[in-house]
């Protein structure tokens, strides 16, 4: 019974990990950029929801929608300012560009918020079934993650810009020859990646305390999940998120909880060695 409680907890948080990882893996898949600003963008999502909720007194989920939109816009902006110039340069250049953004956000964020913990005072109560108690906020977060994943899927497969994104991811040169405005599509992709990061952050902020540095842990998890699910594969990211969440829930039932990161990264290395395209296949 207790294992079931751990499993449920793990899966619920796994959905949120999934959308955080989706943001990272989408950007990697479409533009071959490892976004090192992913963690700070998650943290900004947390603070965005916090600021809007406390300043305007609105429901955090309304704040989350605003944060997602601002995330999209700032992603496009970051692309235009920092990434576009180096997109065709070797990997190290884009890596350093996103690392610079990472440092700028952390530096400014530390100045404004310090590194003290913040919490959003919000509760949706909880549901108890036998020994399992599920928090309302976590349930909503998992549902929101499913909705976000579904929307992303529909966007990528059912809309014209979405098809453009996939075309650019598949073969940018060929897509350009077909008249697809690849630069705009890359900007859009970075925007969506940022939107996903900010949304994941906002959801996490409704139940966990956070600091400006809190995104780092989720960024690392996103790397593991990305590799687990196959880099560039959004649905794989969700599945990978669920696997990771489940591991985090279940491992402590058998071992001291400090073993969790050890086993997570062991898995990460194993997947890279044995099945580098991920459990669910990477984009080719």
């Amino acid at each position, binding site marked *: 019974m*207790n294992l079931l*409680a*751990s499993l449920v*907890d*793990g899966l619920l*948080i796994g959905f949120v990990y999934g959308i955080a990882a989706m943001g990272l893996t989408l950007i990697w898949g479409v533009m071959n950029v*490892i976004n*090192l600003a992913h963690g700070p963008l998650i943290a900004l999502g947390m603070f965005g929801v916090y600021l809007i909720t406390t300043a305007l007194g609105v429901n955090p989920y309304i704040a989350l929608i605003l944060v997602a939109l601002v995330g999209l816009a700032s992603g496009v902006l970051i692309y235009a300012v920092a990434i576009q110039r180096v997109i065709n340069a070797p*990997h*190290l250049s884009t*890596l350093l560009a996103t*690392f610079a953004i*990472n*440092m700028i956000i*952390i*530096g400014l964020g*530390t100045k404004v918020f*310090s*590194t*003290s*913990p913040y919490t959003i*005072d919000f*509760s949706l109560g*909880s549901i*108890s079934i036998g*020994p399992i*108690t599920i*928090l309302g906020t976590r349930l909503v977060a998992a549902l929101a993650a499913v909705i976000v994943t579904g929307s992303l899927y529909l966007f990528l497969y059912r809309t014209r810009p979405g098809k453009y994104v996939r075309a650019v991811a598949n073969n940018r040169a060929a897509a350009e020859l077909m008249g697809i405005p690849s630069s705009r599509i890359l900007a859009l992709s970075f925007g969506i990646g940022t939107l996903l990061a900010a949304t994941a952050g906002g959801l996490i902020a409704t139940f*966990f*305390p*956070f600091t400006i*540095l*809190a995104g*780092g*842990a989720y960024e690392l998890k996103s*790397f593991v999940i990305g590799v687990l699910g196959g*880099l560039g594969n959004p649905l794989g990211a969700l599945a990978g998120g669920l696997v990771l969440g489940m591991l*985090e*829930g279940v*491992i*402590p*039932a058998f071992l*001291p*909880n*400090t073993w*969790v990161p050890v086993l997570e990264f062991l898995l990460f290395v194993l997947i*890279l060695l044995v099945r*580098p*395209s991920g459990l669910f296949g990477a984009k080719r």
Partner: protein
Amino acid sequence: MKRRFAVLISMLMAVGLLAACGTQAPASAPTSAGNAAPGTGAASSKTVTIGFSASLTGASNVESTRQKNGLQLWMDQVNARGGVALADGSKVTFTAKSYDDESNKDRVQELYARLINDDKADFLISPYGSGPTDAAAVIAEQYGKIMITTGAASDSTYSKGYTLVYQMYTPASRYLTGALDALAQAKPDAKKLAVVHENDKFSTDVSNALKSYAEGKGYQIVLFEGYDTSTTDFGPIINKIQQAQPDAILGGGHFQDGTTLSKQLYEKKLSTQFLALLVAPPEPKFAELGAAALGVVGPSQWEPAATYNADAAKSAGIEWYGPTVAEFVKAYKDAYGEEPSYHAAGGYAAGMILGKALEQAGTLDTPKVKATLDGLDLLNFFGHIKFNTSNAHGLQIGHDMVYIQWQRGDGDKPTKQIIWPAAATTAKLTIPLR
């Protein structure tokens, strides 16, 4: 594809390295520009530089800032009175020199060496936290500087043969044992304990000491587990506690993890008789948890409701020194607009004890000040202060903990009550806690 992944892996490794460097914010500027004139000259007024590092950023930010505020208040007060008089008739005033240690013990040794060598600090106060203090103690001893430690309760620092390090806090080995005594008195049939603690030096020391004390008293430890300092999701640990079905949960670590653990235990509706956590509960800010704070017990080095006074000193046959509890509380409230926590009181008391030692020694000469500190035995608003001078030099042996519990007050607002030791209680222990 293979090559791309090789590139990816090497990049990820680079990222790891960069991130490790990246989280360190640049060192902050010193907070004051006072210059030392350490003391052999017979000038009529001298300025003593007190050096320390504080956690302006990082996990210990809340506690450390209060400690620094307390120390600063003492310094402001003593300087406003014209300073401390020495035997040669000169007066010394104090100035602080401090750096941000980012709650990171790896930064501390460099900062203390800098305080001593570059900033010419005459005396040192410890950083906040047992780990950082242990690191700083090495430097203090190496350069022959007296360091008063506060916000640091580990015992082991004082078993390393240091001769110049003096502890203000009740040591870790006695931190949670009183909570167990309180439990034993209120509920003698509670026998199963779960101990979950932060994986840092201080919390681990406390928990290990608690474990051997509890086992000696016939308690059964059904769960003993550490968690990482940065833990925000206690779900897996709470599930484990639920599985073990303890009568009481003890442990915790510091403010950040302690509040999160309390909140999540409440949200998960875990039923237990007794919950005692380190550091977080006595903080006034803990009450912001609302219903989740109710029933939680915490050890406190000091409380504003503490009853130390001159009469108590007289009947114990020791000296009374410094402001009364009420005077300190009022001065702190006037200066910072909030009630002082024990971290603030510890900061103030550390400065005050140093000042007292200089006054009594009548000189700034380190060996003489050391001899004075060794012989100190006095009561003040913070409690009884006396240092071990034999096998664990500098270890605090006079001071005692008080234990608080958040209980339902007016309008269901959590109200802090002292529930142990018996002589100081303001209310009875509520058990089960909610």
